[in-house]
């Protein structure tokens, strides 16, 4: 058995640790690239949302390297993601790949199937071993997400532009060469120290932007055209509403038990969106309000073309923009999104935010505060 799985930001680092600790062979799909997208687009229905296309690209690239089993998580609606696997199976079958799909769905009462699937994919029936590996994988995920947080802080302040991302790129390369929890932990630790040591320029003007939107799009850098690096280097300190660690905790531990996180976010969203509607639209709204209240300078929403929940959120965000007087930019990505136009829009937005910040400061001076 050679297991593969779709990419989603740094998730692969934790998944790699998890399976290595279990002694299961895995194929980490090649980094998402133009080829990945091309393959995915070629075989997927044209009108499906982008994450599915990239998934297909990942799968096929992994199969070419010998993968024979795919691990996917899922949901039971209301959004398309819940039926991704069914379509993906059909697609792979049609092009002649008879591959084993292991689906980790919320059990909806059927715990036996769920547990059996876990035994199957982990290649062991020893619950102690599974739990230990899971705990280690989860820990790594939180550590890697912490790296992101440090990068958010450092990017707009780094004296030499590009330093943060050179370091992270190096890290991504080395990740593929280390094995197991201990080695990974060490690598992450070292990277963290190096990141912290990056020299800052105290005179840089830094503005704060909250990144919201469809979870896969805002987490996977290839899909969002490296928005974090782009904004960071324009002088923006970011915070991102959704993280992989959170996603994993939700999917692995909470959803199967019918629980959910972040009561405060749900509360913030409530005046604008009363219930969950699928995807993470409620989080998009809740975080928008939270960032606005915390005095962020602007909001950037990114989602894949035709994403249903985010379209609902997009209809509501202009109200939040008005209510809290916080500028809002909506970016929609698909396989045709060009880097140039995208960057221009980001730049114009950042300029606007900087001007607003200056004007506010001038106003303060004039009014004698």
């Amino acid at each position: 058995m050679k297991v593969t799985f779709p990419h989603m930001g740094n998730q692969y680092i934790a998944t790699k640790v998890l399976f290595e600790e279990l002694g299961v062979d895995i194929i980490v799909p090649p980094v998402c690239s133009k080829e990945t997208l091309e393959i995915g687009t070629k075989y997927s229905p044209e009108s499906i949302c982008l994450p599915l296309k990239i998934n297909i690209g990942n799968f096929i690239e992994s199969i070419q390297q010998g993968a024979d089993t795919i691990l996917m998580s899922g949901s039971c609606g209301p959004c398309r993601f819940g039926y991704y696997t069914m379509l993906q199976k059909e697609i792979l079958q049609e092009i002649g790949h008879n591959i084993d799909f292991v689906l980790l769905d919320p059990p909806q009462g059927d715990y036996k199937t769920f547990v059996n699937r876990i035994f199957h994919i982990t290649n062991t029936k020893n619950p102690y071993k599974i739990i230990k590996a899971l705990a280690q994988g989860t820990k790594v995920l939180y550590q890697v997400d912490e790296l992101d947080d440090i990068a958010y802080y450092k990017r707009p302040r780094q004296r030499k532009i590009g330093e943060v991302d050179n370091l992270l790129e190096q890290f991504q390369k080395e990740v593929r060469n280390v094995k197991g929890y201990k080695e990974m932990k060490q690598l992450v630790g070292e990277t963290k120290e190096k990141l912290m040591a990056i020299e800052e320029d105290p005179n840089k003007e830094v503005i704060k932007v909250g990144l919201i939107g469809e979870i896969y799009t805002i987490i996977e850098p290839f899909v969002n055209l490296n928005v974090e690096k782009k904004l960071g280097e324009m002088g923006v300190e970011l915070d991102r509403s959704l993280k992989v660690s959170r996603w994993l905790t939700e999917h692995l531990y909470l959803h199967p038990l019918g629980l959910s996180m972040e009561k405060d976010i749900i509360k913030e969203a409530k005046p604008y969106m009363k219930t969950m509607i699928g995807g993470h639209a409620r989080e998009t709204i809740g975080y928008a309000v939270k960032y606005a209240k915390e005095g962020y300078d602007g909001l950037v929403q990114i989602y894949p073309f035709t994403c249903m929940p985010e379209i609902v959120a997009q209809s509501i965000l202009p109200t939040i923009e008005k209510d809290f007087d916080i500028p809002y930019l909506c970016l929609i990505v698909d396989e045709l999104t060009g880097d140039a136009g995208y960057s221009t829009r980001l730049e114009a937005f950042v300029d606007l935010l900087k001007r607003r910040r200056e004007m506010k400061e001038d106003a303060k001076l004039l009014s004698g505060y």
Partner: protein
Amino acid sequence: MTIKIGIPRGLWFYDYYPLWKTFYEELGAEIIISNPTNKNLLDKGVKNTVDEACLPVKIFNGHVIDLKDRVDYIFVPKMMSVYKDEYICPKFCGLPEMVEHSIPNLPPLIDTEINFNQSRKHIMKTVYEFGSYVTKNPIKIRKAYSKALQAYEEYKDKISQGRFPIDGELTSKQLMLNNKNKKKIALLGHTYQLYDRMGSMDIMKKLQDYGVEILIPEMINMDVINEKAATLEKKMFWSYGRKALGTAIYLKENSDIDGAIYVSAFGCGIDSIIGDLFERWTRKDGDIPFLLLTIDEHTGEAGVNTRLEAFIDMIDWRKRDEGNLPAHG
């Protein structure tokens, strides 16, 4: 003074309007239904909706605008789920919110949540909540609801006999030919897509003008469709999807149709999955001629006509060829 409640002629309208119309009329409210979709209404809807939304949602907003200055309430329920473990669409879940934040100066919305995803036990509580906009008298509400259910059952019954609620008006029964020239085509799509004359480019009338006998899923026994859908490896959690995929499996196994047409809304997330699976199972696995028509506000009628014509011609050719083949191959 009687309370005026506006019902927009869009989205769930074609599935449920006799239910809600009867319900509120029995309670003594006056029901005003928005005008059938027209150019002006569509334009207003498009202007007041985010570009990325699907056409049916834009049309729905047009209907809300059509009503907003002439009623006390607009009926925009938050339809999360009508069957256990199922949903309709994320946009249905967030519809009242979308409407509220897209259109200025609205009267209050009747935006009660309908959610039977977990169970139907609280159905009467939901009904009271709907009724409470007009009266607080539970006995009256209960009575009105049972009348409403009756109207709803009758309506569904008529549709299952092949009467279609085009723009909300039930047509008379289709003429069913019984000679070998008869062409029977399965027609799939959201009800608000098929029955809205403007939103569907009048496809039903066009097909009937070609002498086609139309088969919609509602004309197949629903129990059979549900049985077929239950054989899916993973439960289909969209109610419309369950119906459409059940139909696909049924057609593949009992194909007495000459073709299938799937009318899809551009940008519809549900159609992107259901339409694709439907095509795989009917065209590829079932060898049934298949046509996908995707419609948005820029779709030209001429293009649709051409594609329909070509499709019908193709079916005619196929039938003729079949006739020439010896009965025992």
